[in-house]
């Protein structure tokens, strides 16, 4: 099975109604499992797309910045509570979710990542870490229900999901700052 089939299979699997229902029934799983898996599906499919349309990527994403910007915009968009709510209640937004995350976030991420320098990569990870801490605090501290579809306890869970992921990113950043791999390998 090549990467494209794997990605396509993953996308179809995630779109199956029982799978989608299960994953969307828990707020943190919806945002931190289903959505990243959709991005991964796109990431896997990207290789074939890159091979088929090399000129397109060369013209529009030669230094990786436009692609990563598109990725950031899509990711930030889906972190807003309102958009999650709409994905559950408005059919067209649900379809947009299944298209935007794999094709507008996953594919540009793969195309851009290798073109970016180490500094830009770290800057990206740092900004996402900060954003995750901020979003985590927002979801934990908010006294109001932010989504019509999810209870406050689920919102708090999501907040802690953000915080723990940000903490993992911090561990990674410290590790890569402190440990010089060339000392070992």
């Amino acid at each position, binding site marked *: 099975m090549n990467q494209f089939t794997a990605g396509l299979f993953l996308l179809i699997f995630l779109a199956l109604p029982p799978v989608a229902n*299960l994953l969307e029934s*828990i707020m943190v799983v919806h945002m931190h499992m289903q959505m990243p898996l959709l991005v991964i599906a796109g990431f896997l499919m990207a290789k074939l797309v890159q091979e088929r349309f090399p000129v397109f990527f060369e013209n529009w994403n030669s230094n990786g910045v436009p692609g990563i910007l598109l990725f950031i915009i899509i990711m930030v968009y889906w972190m807003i509570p309102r958009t999650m709510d709409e994905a559950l209640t408005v059919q067209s937004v649900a379809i947009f979710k299944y298209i935007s995350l794999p094709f507008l976030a996953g594919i540009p991420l793969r195309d851009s990542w290798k073109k970016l320098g180490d500094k830009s990569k770290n800057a990206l990870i740092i900004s996402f870490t900060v954003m995750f801490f901020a979003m985590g605090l927002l979801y934990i501290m908010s006294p109001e229900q932010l989504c019509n579809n999810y209870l406050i306890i689920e919102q*708090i869970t999501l907040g802690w999901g953000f915080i723990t992921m940000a903490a993992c990113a911090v*561990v*990674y950043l410290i*590790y890569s700052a402190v440990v010089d791999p060339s000392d*070992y390998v």
Partner: protein
Amino acid sequence: MEALKLNFQDKTNKALGINEEDALITKTYMLVAFTALLIGGTLGLLQGLNRAGLLELPVWFNYYQVLTAHGLLLVLVLTAFFTIGYFYAAMSHSLGGLLPKVRKMAWIGFGMKIVGFVMAVIPILLNQATVMFTFYPPMAASPWFYIGLVFIVLGVWMCAFGAFIQVANWRKNNKGQHLPIISYFATGVFVLLFFGSVPVAIEVLYIIPWSIGWIETINVMLARTLFWAFGHTLVNIWYLTALSAWYVVVPKIIGGRRFSDTLTRLVIILLVIMNIPGGFHHQIVDPGIAESVKYMHVFMSLAIGFPSLMTAYAMFSVFEKTARKKGGTGIFAWFKKLPWGDVRFLAPMIAMIAFIPGGAGGIVQSTNQLNQVVHNTLWVVGHFHLTVGTTVVLTFFGISYWLIPYVSKRVLTPKINKLGVITTLIWTAGMSFMAIAMHWVGLLGSPRRTSYTTYADNATALSWDPYLMFLAVGGTLLMIGVLLQVYAVVHLMFFAPKGETEFPIADVEDNASKTPMWTESWGRVVVLLLLLVAMGYVIPLVEFIGNAPPGSPPFQTW
């Protein structure tokens, strides 16, 4: 120059065998491990006889006390001391001798574990800590029991950090090389030991003020969850230790080569990353976790089965290749070419075979519907006597027949080898009686963790008796096995003829493909491990803490 010196050290180490100081560490750890086996095994026999209705235990040393001590001695002391002693010898052998600092840490760790253990055992003997090895709140033991556990954890951390220092030092001096495979296993085990014991440390630090009375109530579900985050990891630490012998040592003993180095390292990485959230399948009937969350955790648990299947394939592939090289033919006839008379092969081989039903039983238990049938029955006890009691322990026995002569600079004589084969067969027979009887009687409803009773001569309860008798027969055979094994260990350590025994490490195939360098990136492995822990634990923990019940005061149920 430094590298040259180390390289030289490395070579002398391999030529002359382990140095005295490193050997002393392993010998001491092994002595403690097998003393624990002797005492724990004896207590096991008492329990088996009681369960069969053959023996009434005295009031001053009751069934539940015996059970607590049996569990603690065998699942904590035997396994922890064996694992650490074994991997310290492995690191000493493959990384050019232990650093003096690391040796000191191993001794400090040893002291802390022994102090902690004594602190934990005294309340058990006084019947003030009859809480089983899982010590679930709201059952509360004497605070000293928990303080003892804290010391044991600190001692384990000391040894884990010693291992990390040793490995980091070797890698700095051997740039561009892969960590020797046996030390790679050691690294995986110590990473798991450290991260797996963090939750139980948090749990115990929460229990201590509650058992003293400084805080009134405890969140029971939170404590159970923290316990199993550790408990399940511990299970896989034993498993990973056994795997190290299967992948690295057994091929050498049968005169073959190792299976793919990359696959071996991938199996270790997968086991390390996916392990900790597996703890939830021990809580499959616990309240407070949504059905959908439990369902997703079944995926997590079964994912651990994947590296096990890779292992099964790898092992049998090695066996077949080796046997065919020696002239084995046919579909199954090549089996005869394997060295069945060599205890160093026979014991781990039976261990592997036992893991086939053991693993299948594990899948039954982590599946929601099937678990309902067997939960808290003797089935579960049968399951872990197959997995820990047979797969892990027989592998440990197999290791002891070359590891102990290696550290004591003696040799395994044909006589002791024969004794080892007999021990292995007795152990296998004993465990078969015991585990099959336990599985079966568990399906018929006999509960675990219950002293013998006929429930006022209830017909169903009486129908369990014949099976329980088999359990006692098995237990008696196992006791004989324990005595023979401990005798062999003492003999190999102090009385066997002097000589050189090698630390058996198989080579990879000549045409093996190169192992990719990403396998050396432990930092990334640890970050992934933490991410998976976050994935597994954020939902239930927020639920348990956010929607917490008033909590429970301590109870002494015995």
